């Protein structure tokens, strides 16, 4: 049985004005123990002003949106409900590390199968009810059980039992050890709502513990929130009011920002970035994200079952050219590793695969293959610019003696009929918070979305052994090996990692943004402020 120390009291970050870094996360025991620090304080660079209103133009709100946390699927609900109205047990800091939120600390025991969360004292729901372990228990149970359609189903499936221990402890018993369990509690569906008499949670009332209280909710149109004066994080939030407006059309969204109807907009078209940057009143804020765009080869299907073909194709694509011409420089070069550099346990996977048609040709020749011809299935919906990227790839590969036939697929139904089905296709991955979750959904032999048909027992064994490993140094080593294996032998060609791209008026103040979830890990409303308030 491993037992980690509970770190309590003020985290050094608060007192010296420095945030915990990922490096510290990797080597220190604090990875498993909770922290008391409040990120809003540790990140403030100059003193934020109080007051004013934030108006945020979203791109994906839907009339399907509801207050039910199991149904949340849009950035609009994630930002307004998960990030503003509610809190989770834990919070993702901007640097990708984990801090306590409604829980002030936690410990994992018995091979990471038993997790005890100690709740913060004095936290109140918007209607004055105090937070209790029963609220936490019911909020998790809401996603579990027979016939659950929750977006967090994959996470809560590993919970065998939830017990209350006294008036401030909740104990989770897992079916198998998982050292990432606290991380998974940051999933945006797992917001804590008040429990209802006789079981279940009361999500219909729109009552949370968050920095803002719900004023009005018109699904797919607008969500309005008002400052919670009794918020449990001292000094937060800064805004008096928050209004989240749905503006699906990109041009209309940009117009709304330019005419001062909103202060921040989601997802600026790369073709408009230069125009926004020329405007003195506006700025573009880029935040590295987990999202990556790939061309995926199915390792179980010929000719991709031949490692030489996979290797040659990885060297026959000029990523720099694609990034410059298709993404106008708004992307970071990928290196055939699905892990993003902002994730815990990310490891460099040398060498950086670079465009080398001669080397690709040599590899194929050595394997006895003279002319290789492949069919690449793409559609614009696969990822923005996928078709253009494929056309460039075809030109690049031709120099290596590889023929890439572009198969233009229909946009509608791409994810049902092409993705996971055609042996070489383009894919848009939003990523996962932890490597374990990323690998288990897409790269282990039994992963439901194994788009690369990667079935390697050695890789599966690495992922399994890392899962319950509480020794962070050992874990880092295992994950580095797994990432290197995907880089060397896997079927994914990671073209690029893209950033969240917000445009906002220069009146909005903020520190470094978190990029694991959009909109500053959904918590922009409590982290940002108005300079002109």
């Amino acid at each position, binding site marked *: 049985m491993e037992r980690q120390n509970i770190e309590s009291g003020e985290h050094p970050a608060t007192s010296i004005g420095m945030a915990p870094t990922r490096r510290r996360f990797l080597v220190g025991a604090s990875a498993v123990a909770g922290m008391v620090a409040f990120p809003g304080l540790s990140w403030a660079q100059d003193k934020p002003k109080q007051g004013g209103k934030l108006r945020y133009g979203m791109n994906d709100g839907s009339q*399907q949106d509801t207050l039910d946390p199991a149904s949340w699927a849009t950035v609009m609900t994630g930002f307004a409900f998960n990030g503003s109205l509610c809190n989770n047990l834990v919070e993702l800091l901007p640097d990708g590390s984990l801090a306590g939120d409604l829980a002030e600390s936690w410990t994992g025991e018995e091979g990471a199968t038993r997790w005890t969360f100690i709740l913060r004292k004095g936290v109140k729901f918007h209607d004055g009810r105090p937070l209790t372990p029963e609220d936490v228990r019911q909020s998790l149970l809401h996603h579990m059980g027979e016939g659950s359609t929750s977006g967090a189903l994959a996470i809560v499936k590993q919970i065998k039992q939830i017990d209350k221990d006294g008036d401030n402890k909740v104990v989770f018993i897992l079916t198998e050890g998982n050292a990432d369990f606290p991380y998974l509690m940051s999933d945006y569906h797992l917001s804590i709502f008040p429990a209802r008499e006789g079981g279940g949670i009361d999500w219909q009332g729109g009552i949370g513990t968050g920095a803002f209280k719900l004023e009005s909710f018109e699904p797919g149109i607008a969500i309005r929130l008002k400052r919670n004066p009794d918020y449990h994080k001292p000094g937060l939030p800064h805004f008096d009011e928050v209004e989240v407006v749905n503006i699906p059309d990109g041009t209309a969204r940009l117009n709304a920002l330019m005419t001062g109807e909103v202060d921040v907009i989601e997802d600026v078209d790369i073709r408009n970035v230069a125009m926004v940057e020329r405007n003195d009143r506006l700025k573009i804020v880029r935040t590295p994200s987990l999202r990556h765009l790939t061309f995926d080869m199915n390792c179980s299907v010929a000719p991709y079952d031949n490692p030489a073909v996979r290797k040659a194709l990885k060297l026959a694509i000029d990523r720099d050219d694609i990034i410059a011409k298709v993404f106008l420089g708004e992307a970071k070069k990928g290196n055939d590793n699905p892990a993003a550099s902002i994730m815990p346990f990310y490891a460099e996977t040398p060498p950086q695969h670079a465009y080398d048609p001669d080397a690709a040709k040599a590899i194929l020749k050595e394997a006895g293959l003279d002319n290789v011809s492949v069919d690449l299935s793409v559609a614009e919906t696969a990822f923005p610019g996928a078709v253009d990227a494929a056309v460039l790839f075809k030109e690049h590969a031709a120099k290596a003696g590889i023929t890439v036939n572009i198969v233009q697929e229909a946009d509608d139904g791409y994810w049902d009929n092409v993705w996971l089905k055609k042996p070489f296709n383009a894919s848009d991955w939003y990523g996962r918070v932890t490597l374990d979750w990323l690998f288990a959904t897409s790269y282990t032999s039994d992963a439901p979305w194994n788009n690369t048909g990667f079935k390697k027992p050695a890789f599966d064994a690495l992922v399994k052994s890392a899962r319950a490993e509480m020794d962070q140094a050992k874990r880092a080593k295992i994950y580095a090996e797994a990432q290197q294996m995907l880089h060397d032998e896997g079927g994914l060609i990671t073209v690029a990692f893209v950033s969240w791209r917000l445009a906002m008026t220069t009146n909005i103040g903020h520190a470094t943004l978190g990029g694991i979830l959009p909109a500053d890990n959904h918590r922009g409303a409590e982290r940002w402020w108005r300079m002109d308030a």
Partner: protein
Amino acid sequence: MTTKSHPILSMAASRIGLGLLSLLIVSLIIFSAVSFLPGSYASAILGQNATPAAVAAMEVKLGLNRPWFLRYLAWLGAAATGDMGLSFSGRPVMALIGPRLKNTLVLASITAAIAVPLSIALGIVCARYRGRFLDKFLSTSTLASISIPEFFVAYVVMMVLAVKLQLFPSMAGIRNGMGLGEQLYRMVLPILTLLLVILAHMVRNTRAAILSVMASPYIEMARLKGEPEKRVVVRQALPNAIGPIASVVALNLAYLISGVVVIEVVFVYPGVGQAMIDAVRNRDVPVIQACALIFAAAYIGFNLIADIISIVSNPRLLHPR
């Protein structure tokens, strides 16, 4: 003349009957078409959480695992009693569409209240001064505005009045609790755009209808009797042109209900067109069906009214022998 053979009543009865049949066919076509589209509500909503197990669980929960015609019959049974059912998100369809329908009707009514009298007046003026500068100017400019796609008109209007001159807000997003004055102020740009789009059609048709009547011998007779030209156009020609004018007005009013989705998107106006697009994207069949029925009913209803007007305005149809 007996009431049972009254032309308006019998026409209205047969039109309403045919209209209901049309609605039935429309609902069947839409329902089956959506069912044959790839993708489902479950995979659309679950997005990157759509593991096969989660999709299956949601389809069972929503009854999507049953064949589409069984689902259609169940939907039809409820709809026949006026119950539009629940959206897949769990809210009643009418609660979801209701406020948006109200917004659409408000926008359509205000636009129609301005557009219909204005376009008929302009059409009369054009007919009266046929071939003169005013007629040529109006004919050319309306032809131009009818030829330009509506989204382009919308963006030009927005660029000039909202971005450059900053006279009006670029977002028409009206919301609950906003004063009437501010609501109207926010709606100026979409109304202006819609006016530019529908005026042309109605002006040109009014002009053409009056001019075709003006070629009749009785107009020549009126002129020979010495009636002033203005009186000839308004008192002699116009009443006989009401039928065709009513049908083009009906067509444009129906467009204002069902065709303004592009305007809604550009000006972020929360109308029922956006609701339908959203529903199609998510394959939310009950909402799609309700929107389709509203749109189809608008066309059928306005055309029925136009037919009644043309019968009333035509004594030969009103009192058949």
